Each structure stands twice: as structure tokens, then as C-alpha cells.
């Protein structure tokens, strides 16, 4: 996602949507490169509290009348 820099809770994000460390540099993608404190913080305030949802839209299909199948292939 590309957008303007923004904040979520105590976290700042750059224009690529990557959260920034306290020194203003983006977090690396690899969690093994995060400190334990950073992991705990991100786990709680960015990755935490995940909820899932869905919404079904309407079907765009007109119902059809169903005819009999005829062995000789003629139309019903």
C-alpha cells in the first residue's frame, strides 16, 4: 500500500505503510531482526486483536425455468 505517512496508536508509518522504529527507520520485514521489546509492542498494538469478517454481495443471475431432457434431443 502506498499512501501518506500516518500514525496508528503510538506507531508511525512511512508512505509505504511500513511501521517506523523510534529512530525513524522502517522495521525490517524479518521478525528475527526485531528486538524483544519491539516484538512485544508490535504483537500487541499492530498484529494484536485481529478480527475477521465477511459480507456477501448479491448474486447477479436471473433464475431460469428448467425443461425436461428428451432422449431424442428435441426441445421441450
Amino acid at each position, binding site marked *: 500500500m502506498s499512501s501518506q505517512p500516518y500514525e496508528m496508536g503510538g506507531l508511525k508509518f512511512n508512505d*509505504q505503510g511500513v511501521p517506523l522504529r523510534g529512530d525513524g527507520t522502517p522495521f525490517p520485514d524479518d521478525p528475527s531482526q526485531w528486538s524483544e521489546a519491539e516484538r512485544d509492542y508490535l504483537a500487541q498494538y499492530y*498484529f494484536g486483536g485481529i478480527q475477521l*469478517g*465477511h*459480507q456477501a*454481495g448479491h448474486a447477479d*443471475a436471473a433464475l431460469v425455468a428448467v425443461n425436461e431432457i428428451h432422449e431424442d434431443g428435441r426441445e421441450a
Partner: protein
Amino acid sequence: MADWGVIEKAGEFAWTVLKDGKPTAEAHSAHFRAVPQGVDFTQLENAQNGTWSVEFWSTNLYGVRVVDLKATVHFEYGATYKGGGAFLPSIMVEAAHVSVLWGFSLDFEAHFGDPTNVSQEHNKPIAAVQLNLVAKISSFLKTEVLTVPVEIRGDGQVIPL
């Protein structure tokens, strides 16, 4: 010999539409088909085009949508064999819009059940199949799975389950 009252499946029965948020190669070509037993889908006629859409999302603690997916099911229905019945010669699944924020990943799969004949009349078979759309949303913490089942019928009915 064909038995019209028995619906059988053809094509692909399950595939991955998105892997790590990106469309897969199979997603562009995979079709499920529900046809009369012993009949090739190319023998069916008069199919009409239908669509059904569904949106999946995941929010975090702050209510921010970290994953957003709009999927469209494209299906051909109302297809006849020897002038009758209502079969499903093609069902495809498209990820029409995908947004995944940093640190999350999204896999999206389509799984089809065994098709059935939901008609009460033997000479007027109506194919029906349950499609399960499965979204797997992962972070370094864990993977969450959301499954949305829907039944698609040859007469054009779409029934969320």
C-alpha cells in the same frame, strides 16, 4: 450411458486463487464443472453468465483493515442437455481487489464439494454444488482462517450457507 439424474464433477475441484496475496497461475485457468454423468461439458447448450461477490476483511486492535479482499465468483448456469436440465459448465473464482498491509499475508483458496441434483423430477435435473471460499490471514504471530460456504445451483440460485 448417460444418467442425467446423476451429476458429476469435472475440471478442477480445488485450487489456490491467491498465494501470499498474489494471483496464482492456476487461478487464471481453473474451472469447476457440474455436468450430467457421462456427458462432456462441450455438449451442453444455452448457458448464461452469472456472478456472485463476497468481501473478506481483517481488522487489528485499532480497527484498521490490515487485509481486504473482494472476490467474485463467475459461473455459467442454466446449461441444457438435449434441451433440458440446468447444469453448471463453468465456475471460476477471481480475486477482484486485494489489499494486504505490511507484516500480513493472505492465501485464498476455492474448494468444491460433490455436486448433487436438487431437482424433484428426474427428467429436469438441476445441478448444485457447495463452494467453500477459504481466506487464510497470517502474521508472525499466527494464522487465522475464515471459510465462507455458498451453494450455486444450475437454475441460477446462489445460496449462502
